[in-house]
Structures are given as C-alpha cells and as structure tokens.
C-alpha cells in the first residue's frame, strides 16, 4: 500500500485512510526525538484544563520559562474575575535547585494569598520541581492550614508522559481529590447538572448555558470555563454530567460516575444538528414531559432565529474541502458542522489522540478520509502540499505553515475570536470559515515574483 506521505519508516503507520483495512492509525506513542513535534508537556495539559477557573491563582512552581510562555494564553473568557489571567511563578533560581524550592514555594503562596485573597491557589509542579524532589503536597497542606485558602497541588511534572492527555487527567485529579465534594449546595433541584469539558474559549459556554437553563435545568458548575472553585466544590450533587470536550474530560466524568454515581452523556454544541441532538439527549435523560416539550420549543426558536443566516456563506463554501489537525475533541466534534456547511472533511488528525479518540474519528468521518496521528511540522507541510485542502483547522503553531503554502486557515484553539457553540455560534462559525476560505488574498499568485514580467 502506498504511504499517505513520505516520512520516517516508523511514522508511516501513524497515518491511514478510512476504508483501507483497520482505519485506525498507530497512536499514543512517544514522538521521535529530533522532530518538530506539535505536542506539549504534561504541565501544559494540566494547566489548560484548570486555568479557566477564574477566581483562582495559578502558581507555577519552577523556573520562569514555564510560566512566562503559558500565562494568559487560554482564550478562555470570564464574566467575573480575571485573577486566572495573572502569570504567577516561584521563579526558581540555581540556589533553589541546589537547596530545594519548598520554602520559596511556601512564602510565595502566603504572599499571593495576602495580595489577592483568591478562591484557591493551584500549585503546578514542573520538570525541575519534580527532579529536585520538592514535596509540593506537604507545602500546599501546610499553607492551606495557615491561610484557610484552598491550596491545591497539581502533580504535573512536564516530562511524565509523551501525551499531554495525562496532564488533563492530572488536572482532573486535582479537582477530584481536593475540590469536588467539599461543599454542599444550599438547594438542589431534580434537574441539577454540571457542564464538563467546556472551557469557554471565546465565550462558547455563553452560547450553551442559556439554552440549557431555558430547559428548566439548574447548572451547578462548569468544569472549568468561567467557573469559581466553590461552584466546582458542589459538583458532586449533580444528577447528570454533560461532557463537551470528551478528549480532556471523559476522565473526570468517569471518575465522578464511579465516586458519586453521576451518569454522564457526551454532548456536542458545534453545528445545528449536533446542538439539537445534544439538547434532546439531555431532555430525554431526565424524561420529564414538560421539559421535553419546552426543549422542542427552544430548538424550534433556535433554528428559526438562524434560518437563512448562513445561506450566503454556504453558497461559497459548498464542496470546499477541509483538513482538521487539532488537540483531540474537535477532530470529531466539528465534522458534522462542516458537513452542514456543505464542506467535505478530507483529513482529520490529532496531536495527542489515544485509541478511543481514533475510534471516534473513524465512526464520524466518511470513507476516504485521511486520519493522522502526531504529525510533526514537516509531515503536516507535506500533507497540505500533497492533498491541498481548501482550509486547515488547527492551532497557532500550525497556522503559518498553512498560510505560507497559500492554504486558508482558521484558528479553533486558544486564539479563536468568536464563539462557535450553540445556534448563534453556528452562524459565527460559518462567517469565520467563509472569511478564511473565500478571501481573495488567496487567489493572488504566491509564487515569488508571480505577477511580474520583467527579467
């Protein structure tokens, strides 16, 4: 069989075409040393799931670089505090490496608590904190006793695993072990839920929340978009967890099911059809006739509100091809939304996918779709050159590879500027996609000196 693209022998099995044989690429393997991997570290994975907790200080225990490159990059919006956007670090120096950083960590926690009186202080372990053997758990415990503020250790030493998914789990563990179940709600209703794996990037949560509340559902907490730590503390009293980002957050939902018997359903608010299905799934779960009727009204209103609003975009997007290369969840959750625009998903891939993720992708995409795992920058450039999609959906690091090849690009990651979830979100989604795919700048000759005649 011809390989999808030319690359290292060991990497060829990380790419396949749906329909051929097993249709699932080899995945969850350490990246080849010496390649420009698009992956990040375990610390990054943990930070990204916890950072949207807005009333908390996120303190990075390590040398300055770990904090300096990751503060305020989540694109996660807040309706209340902006404490979570501060870049806090213990800024470990050589002497701390030699003599240990525990004392500095303790003093830093005390100081930050005094300065900000946060809802909680999350303390992230980095590579160096792990190697020098700082006992961040003990320091956090002591600091919590003295301050009365929640001080939560996150054991996220960067080198632990090649897959940042491990970091998502570690972030989830911090919530499970130290936050969830530590506070009782003042009142409960028969329809209490948590929204899990929704990080409010560009305000996505705000497209979903009103729909769910209109159904007569009480949202106890969001994990973790636009949340306060005291809300998450009450999450154990929910009757249902709905999971939007299944890549990062199935883990927490499963654990909550084990510990508290809370069932969970997977939802997807990207695209009209998926939004409708998700709302119906939630209503069906509760089985309340009145709620089911109300949900149908909400759906009818929602669809009516956006009717014909995407027609103009669809006209231009019909038949255009799109390649997805994302962290995980969007590799399947966006597929239907693109199909609703009349577009054709010709490639889908993730940087950190595990087997169950690729099962999901395989179920979702049509035959002939290329499925790729952990493509490094050279491979990505080759894929784009060879298969020439009309659009690439990926993150900041991939953006300019695509643009230099003259392939339109949309950022669906942290730098996204409009909310795409829910009914109205779909209109913004269509508008944004159109703005990339249909821009005339891509029609200009991009060969060096392309339109010039002189010699």
């Amino acid at each position, binding site marked *: 069989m011809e390989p999808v693209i030319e690359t290292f022998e060991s990497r060829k099995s990380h790419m396949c075409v749906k329909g051929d044989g097993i249709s699932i690429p080899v995945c969850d393997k*350490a*990246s*080849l*040393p*010496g*390649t*420009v*991997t698009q992956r990040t*570290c375990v610390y*990054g994975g943990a930070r990204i799931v916890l950072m949207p907790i807005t009333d908390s200080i996120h*303190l990075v225990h*390590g*040398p*300055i*670089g*770990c*904090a*300096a*490159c990751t503060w305020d990059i989540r694109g996660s919006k807040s309706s209340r505090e902006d404490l979570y*956007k*501060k*870049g*806090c*670090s*213990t*800024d*470990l*120096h*050589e002497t701390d*490496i030699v003599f240990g950083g525990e004392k500095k960590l303790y003093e*830093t926690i005390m*100081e*930050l608590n*005094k*300065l900000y009186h946060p809802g909680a202080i999350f303390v992230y372990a980095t*590579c*160096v904190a792990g*190697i*020098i053997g700082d006992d961040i758990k003990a320091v956090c415990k002591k600091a919590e006793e003295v301050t009365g503020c929640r001080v939560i250790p996150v054991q996220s030493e*960067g*080198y*632990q*695993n*090649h897959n940042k998914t491990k970091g998502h789990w570690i972030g989830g563990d911090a919530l499970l072990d130290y936050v969830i179940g530590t506070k009782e709600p003042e009142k409960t209703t028969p329809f209490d839920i948590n929204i899990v794996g929704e990080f409010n990037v560009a305000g996505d949560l705000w497209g979903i929340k009103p729909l769910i509340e209109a159904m007569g559902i009480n949202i106890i907490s969001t994990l973790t978009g636009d949340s306060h730590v005291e809300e998450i503390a009450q999450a154990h009293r929910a009757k249902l967890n709905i999971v939007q980002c299944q890549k990062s957050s199935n883990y927490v939902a499963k654990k909550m099911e084990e510990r508290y018997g809370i069932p969970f359903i997977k939802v997807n608010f990207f695209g009209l059809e998926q939004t409708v299905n998700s709302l119906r799934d939630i209503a069906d779960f509760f089985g309340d006739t009145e709620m089911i009727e109300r949900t149908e009204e909400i759906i009818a209103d929602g669809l009516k509100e956006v009717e014909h609003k995407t027609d103009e975009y669809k006209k231009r997007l019909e038949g255009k091809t799109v390649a997805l290369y994302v962290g995980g969840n969007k590799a399947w959750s966006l597929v239907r939304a693109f199909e609703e625009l009349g577009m054709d998903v010709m490639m889908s891939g993730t940087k950190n996918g595990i087997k169950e993720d690729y099962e999901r992708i395989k179920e979702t995409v049509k035959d002939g779709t290329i499925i790729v795992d952990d493509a490094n*920058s*050279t491979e990505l*450039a080759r894929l784009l*050159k060879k298969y020439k999609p009309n659009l690439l959906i990926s993150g*900041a*690091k991939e*953006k*300019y*590879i695509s*643009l*230099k*090849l*003259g392939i339109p690009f949309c950022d669906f990651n942290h730098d996204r500027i409009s909310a795409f979830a829910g009914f109205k979100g779909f209109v913004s989604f269509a508008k944004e996609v159109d703005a990339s795919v249909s821009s005339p700048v891509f029609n200009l000759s*991009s*060969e*060096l000196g392309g339109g010039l005649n002189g010699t």
Partner: protein
Amino acid sequence: MEHDKKFSVVNPSKMCQPMGAVQALLGVNDTMPIIHGSQGCSTYIRFQLTRHFREPIDVASTSMSEKTVIYGGEFNLMKALKNVSEKQSPKMIAVTSSCLTETIGEDMEGIIEKFKDANFDKNLPIIVPISTPSYVESHVEGYNRTIKALVENLAESSTPNGKINIINGILSPADVKNVKQLLNDLNCPNIMLTDTSENLDAPLSEETLGLYKDGTTIEEIQDTANSLGTISISKHADSAATFLEQKYGVKSVSGPLPLGIENTDQFVNNVCELTGIEVPESVKKDRGRLLDAMVDAHSYNYHRKVAIFGDPDFVSGMTRFTSEMGMTPTVVCTGAKSNKFTEDIGLIASQKGIDPVVLAGNDLYDMHREIKDAGADILIGNSYGASIAEEEKIPLFRVGFPIFDRMGAQRISTLGYNGGTEFVDRLTNTLLDFYYDEAGYELEKSEEIIEEELFAEGEFV
C-alpha cells in the same frame, strides 16, 4: 515605598534562557535548533515566537520522558541528532539544554562526541552544544551564551577581512535590517550575529518553509575571528566579543544600541573609529531627517510622562531616546537583574535631569504599582502591557517581544537614524490620536483623569 511582594513573580517581564538561545539561532543559515528537554519547552517557545513573528518556527525537541529522566537522556539526544542529520541534513545542529537536562546533569558535549565517533564515516552537520539552564538569569543571557557558543565553536583565524562583527541581541527583523542598512550606507562590510531580517520576516512562499536559506552563514561565523572589531550593540550579549578579543585580538566595543540621536551617533563613531571610514553625506542627511522629525514633534512630546519596559538594552536606549525627545521617563523596568542596566540609567538620568523609578529584575506587577505612583501618559513595551495601559487609561506603544495582539511585530522600526525617524512619527501620532481632538486641539483627558483619581481618593470631598 513599602514593598508588599518579595517572593512571587506576577506577570513576568522576562523569559528563560532557551528562549533567548532560539531567538539567536533563528538568525543562522541552514541550522536546526534542538532543545534537549521536555516537549513543552520547544512547543511553548515556538508558540510565543510564532504568534509574534507570524511565521512558521521550527525547533526540534529531544522529547524527554519519565524513563529518560531516570536513565539519562543520552538515547534521546543521540536519536535526535541522527534523525535531524538524516532527514533534514542541515549544515549545523545547535543543541540547547533546558532546566530538566541541566538538573539531571546531562553531559551534552560527551554525548555529542560519542555521536560523532559512532558516525565518523558519515558527513555529519556541525554540532554545537549550548548550555542554557532556565533557572539562571533570563532569556537575555540565553542569547548571550548562544552567540558565544557559536563563535567559540566556529571562529577560525585566517586572513583579515576588514569587516565589523555586530552582536545584535533580540531585535525585530526590521531593526536588524535598519542596522544592516546603516552599515551599508557607511560602506562598512559586516557580519551580523545573528541576522534574522529575512528569516523572520519572510515573503509568502512555500520556499520559505524548512531550513533557513537566509541568515548569518556558518562561513561568516567562522570569519568573525578575522574582523577589525566586534560591536555588541546589545551590551548584555558581549561575551562572544570578549572571547574574540582575547583569543584573536578582535577589538571589542560594548554598546550602545543605536536608539535615538546620541546613541546612533555613538554607534556610527564606533564604526568609523574601528574602520577609518568617513561618514558619507547620505548618512548625515538621514541623521538630519531624524532631528527634523524630533523637532517637528517636540511640542506634543515635551514633558509627556513615559513608562518603558522590556529587555535591558532596549529600555536604557529608549530611556535616552525619549529623554532626547523631551519626554519624561517616570518608570523604567526590565525583568533581568543587571548592574549594567542600572548604571546606564543612572548615567542617562544625571545627563538628562530625569529621575525615573528604576526596576531591574522586576515583574509587571511591580511596574504597575510604580506607574500608579509616578504616573505615565504612555507606556512603551510589549503586548503584556495592554492590561496595565487599559487600567491606567493610557496608550500602549507596542515594541519589543512578544507582540501578539497587533499585526506587524516583525516590521517595527526603532534603530538607526531611519528607524528612529519612523519611531518618532509613530509615537507622536499615538499621542495625537489619544490626547488631541480631530481639529488638533489637546483634549482635557490627562487633567480629567487626574481629577477623577483625586476625587476617588477623597481628597476633594
């Protein structure tokens, strides 16, 4: 003033050594940087660089994991060297360390030697190890060490070349171009350490993907031993110049960054002194144009309070430049601890009769506190200043690194006479946009804000 913060860093104004190392390496031709560490180091550094320069940035990683941390990273580094040599075959591989590999005590030089021995029969790239522990100093030192490592490993004495070596420090590609242009205008042949001007401001073309075809060549770095002198326009990156002076007798001159009239004059004088060149008419005219721009704008700038933050050489240069323009620097802040910086500012303060609050080794939290106290009409620095400017209701003039919320960070000019002219125009226009109405009259804005503050503090009630 009472200091309420001693231990924590809140909103850093510095990055770690590998970041500076990578910025230096991105100006070298046909070279692949590898960070020997966790994947996060290269990925987050690439993320910052990509969103600033709006260019694809390739930095490989040795992808260290738990097992390799316990048993050492030799296997990963050997494998990385093999993969890069075979698949990309660059002329040079530059391996920087990280906090992880420094702490576990990796012998990078030994591993590299072992790799070379095992592949003695192959045509390998030049391999340069660079020790950049993230827990020592900052990105500025990472840049310094990288230039030094390049020169130490590559410089070779042969015939005198009549050139001047320039150590740039971390500059925008446009400013590297400005320095090059000024040297070209002076007819001064030069070697830029390093030249990011094309690599990080590349045209839209798939040919610019992959290893850099522009930038300082290996041969040029080898030839630095034969130059007339080295001018480190970044004083904080002059270790390579000292090395060249001691080993090859190449004269070393430290500073200044050609920012503003006096500093650019000094730079041009330094070049002329080393080379015996006479200043051509065209350069004199460019100087005159900068003066003309400063005079044209003087009434808008006079006594405007300015706060400046960023890398140490930039901040001290900008302190002098804005003082020349008649502005009043009130707070100047750099994330790196540096005596050179505090001395420079002290000298400028005494010459110009200003008395700014000087922060060295501080963060943006500290700077914000001082701005609240000392006041500022405009803030000059990178995108991380945006929330401070917003809160203080003053404009942020974006220059430095990183700039991710505006277009064109690659093309921001400040250096030399021509870059300076562009800067003066843009800075003054920012003030005009903010403090003057459409008819050109000054708004009451500044006074209004002061009154609001006083009322809020209850002094008038």
